């Protein structure tokens, strides 16, 4: 039998510290759903998802119940739809988005990812049609998420695509004007997008993946925060160095990851699909006690955004990767600490009191797992400025061989300091001010490509 103190620690982790499996995501290849017309392809997509994922939600719930660890989200990622619908018109792509939405509803899934394209080096005809379809697709469906990869360390950044996506982000927000621009919360622009990420809105089932696969996203900011608090209370802050705290994060992440892998493998066995990866991310929710920002404060900054915040995010991100990698047989996805403003109550509070500004947030994203995530900005921000913010963020990833992404929400009719709430997991925040708006137009209008970075002389 496991030692009593270990049992109590594990029980505490589950009962009091919000330990859960944040998402089990079924990746499905839709390449074989292609046909000569959008209508038939849409039907094929619905049939395939229904066949593969019919009992997915009930299986996850059953296994979560058996182990006493809830699987909070059950999601589906699919082959980037630009590959499935290449040759169709813009309207054809909208039809495919609706088919995804219906299929997700039928199998009881709240979010499906993969209305996506990779335009890191150039935009094909199919990619262009899909991108044009994004505003309508996202504003007329409830469950579909879109992601576009516009840069990579191997190929550099496609600024023509980034410029177009600046317009698309704005159009998408405006198309969902009645929901405060919520459509843009379902659109992420990436560099170095992974093909096995189970987290939304950027989940896709990459071209190098199997026919269908089960990926798991673990979370647990609450577990890490409580472990750190306990460590500090037991041993005294004076007797601890940051190395000790990093070690505590590693150990807590180890336990969280083990738990996620156990549940994920059980689901994959029960459904009869191969197990893909565990994504070791610390993904906050707006709930109190489930915040990454809270961890930053425990680690020593009184206000998030104060000097030191970037160093702390870097240490946290690294410790999470180290603990999780040892715990899991196969790790992938984004794997690190997310800092999505609207989805994290502490980050949102820091924006509200002015201690966290866009520029500092951007600095922190250089060392976090993804990027500028769920950032509400004024609705009148020009598309050029949006494109330039995305270019900055994506280039951080391109140069540093890491994934970065931008999920910006220009909230229609709202200005900096106004409040926006999407409710539920998408959270709420005050809108961040943007400085120097309109001062990047010449850069964005150049277009073209930023060349791939050199892979030596790393300074």
């Amino acid at each position: 039998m496991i030692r009593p103190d270990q049992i109590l620690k594990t029980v505490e982790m589950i009962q009091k510290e919000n330990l859960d499996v944040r998402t089990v995501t079924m990746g499905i290849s839709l390449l074989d759903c292609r046909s000569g017309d959008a209508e038939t392809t849409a039907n094929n997509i619905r049939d395939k998802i229904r066949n593969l994922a019919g009992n997915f939600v009930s299986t996850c719930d059953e296994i979560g119940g058996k182990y006493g660890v809830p699987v909070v989200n059950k999601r589906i990622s699919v082959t980037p739809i630009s590959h499935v619908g290449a040759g169709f018109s813009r309207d054809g792509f909208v039809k495919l988005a609706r088919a995804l939405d219906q299929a997700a509803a039928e199998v009881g899934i709240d979010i499906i990812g993969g209305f996506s394209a990779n335009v890191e080096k150039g935009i094909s005809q199919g990619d262009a049609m899909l991108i044009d379809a994004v505003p309508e697709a996202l504003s007329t469906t409830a469950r579909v998420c879109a992601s576009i990869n516009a840069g990579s360390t191997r190929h550099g950044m496609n600024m023509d695509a980034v410029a177009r996506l600046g317009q698309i982000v704005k159009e998408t927000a405006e198309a969902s004007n009645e929901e405060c621009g919520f459509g843009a919360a379902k659109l992420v622009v990436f560099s170095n997008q992974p093909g096995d990420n189970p987290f939304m809105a950027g989940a896709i089932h990459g071209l190098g993946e199997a026919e269908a696969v089960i990926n798991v996203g673990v979370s647990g900011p609450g577990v890490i925060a409580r472990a750190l608090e306990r460590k500090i209370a037991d041993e005294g802050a004076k007797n601890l160095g940051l190395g000790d705290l990093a070690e505590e994060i590693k150990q807590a992440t180890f336990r969280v990851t083990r738990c996620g892998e156990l549940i994920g493998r059980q689901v994959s066995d029960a459904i009869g699909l191969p197990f893909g990866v565990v994504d070791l991310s610390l993904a906050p929710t707006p709930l109190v006690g489930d915040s990454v920002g809270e961890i930053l404060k425990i680690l020593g900054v009184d206000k998030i955004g104060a000097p030191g915040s970037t160093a702390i995010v870097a240490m946290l991100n690294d410790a999470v990767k180290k603990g999780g990698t040892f715990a899991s047989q196969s790790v992938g996805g984004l794997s690190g600490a997310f800092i999505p403003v609207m989805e994290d109550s502490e980050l949102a509070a820091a924006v509200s009191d002015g201690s966290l500004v866009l520029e500092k947030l951007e600095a922190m994203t250089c060392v976090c797992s993804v990027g500028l995530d769920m950032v509400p900005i004024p609705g009148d921000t020009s598309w050029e400025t949006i494109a330039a913010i995305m270019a900055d963020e994506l280039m951080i990833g391109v140069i540093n061989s890491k994934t970065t992404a931008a999920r910006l929400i220009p909230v229609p009719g709202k200005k900096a300091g106004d409040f926006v709430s999407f409710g539920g997991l998408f959270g709420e925040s005050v809108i961040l001010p943007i400085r120097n708006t309109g001062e990047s137009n010449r850069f964005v209008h150049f277009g073209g490509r930023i060349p791939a970075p050199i892979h030596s002389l790393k300074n």
Partner: protein
Amino acid sequence: MNQTMVISVMDRDRPGIVADVTEGIGALGGNLADLRESVLCGYFTMILSAAFPADVSVEQVKQALTEGNTLNVSIAPTEGSLTEPEDSCHAYVLTAAGQDRVGLVAQVSRFCCERGVNILDLASHVDSSRYTMMLLLDLSSIHSIETFKTELVSFGNTSGLSLDLQHNDLFRATNEI
């Protein structure tokens, strides 16, 4: 043909108990198969199983182990080979915590017994006046875990205990490398 005996030993803890017992068993040609020991409140207890040659009697073993010391020894001969219950998919850990009072363990174990649930292992922990017990349960006789959990909730309400049931694999996954 060998015969297997399960032997339990209890005595006030001191250096040399394990050495005395195992030497005594060895002198009779006994081969140790498995052994557990524990010390509580200064008292040592040990349970072991050993295979002896067919001509060794229970009395001989008892005499060899108790001679010249104050050990409390019980011996049970068993037939056939002994197998430990395998790690099963039905092993759950029940954690029960409440204000320390008389009869807590009895209450919980009776609840299990009434449902045909075997307790495979049990440990307890007292922290000031809060008593926590951890029971490793074999739920293979339970048809519906959900029903069992519902019964646990109502048992928790009537007994004032806080009860958590989790699958044993979860504890192994989070605590073993």
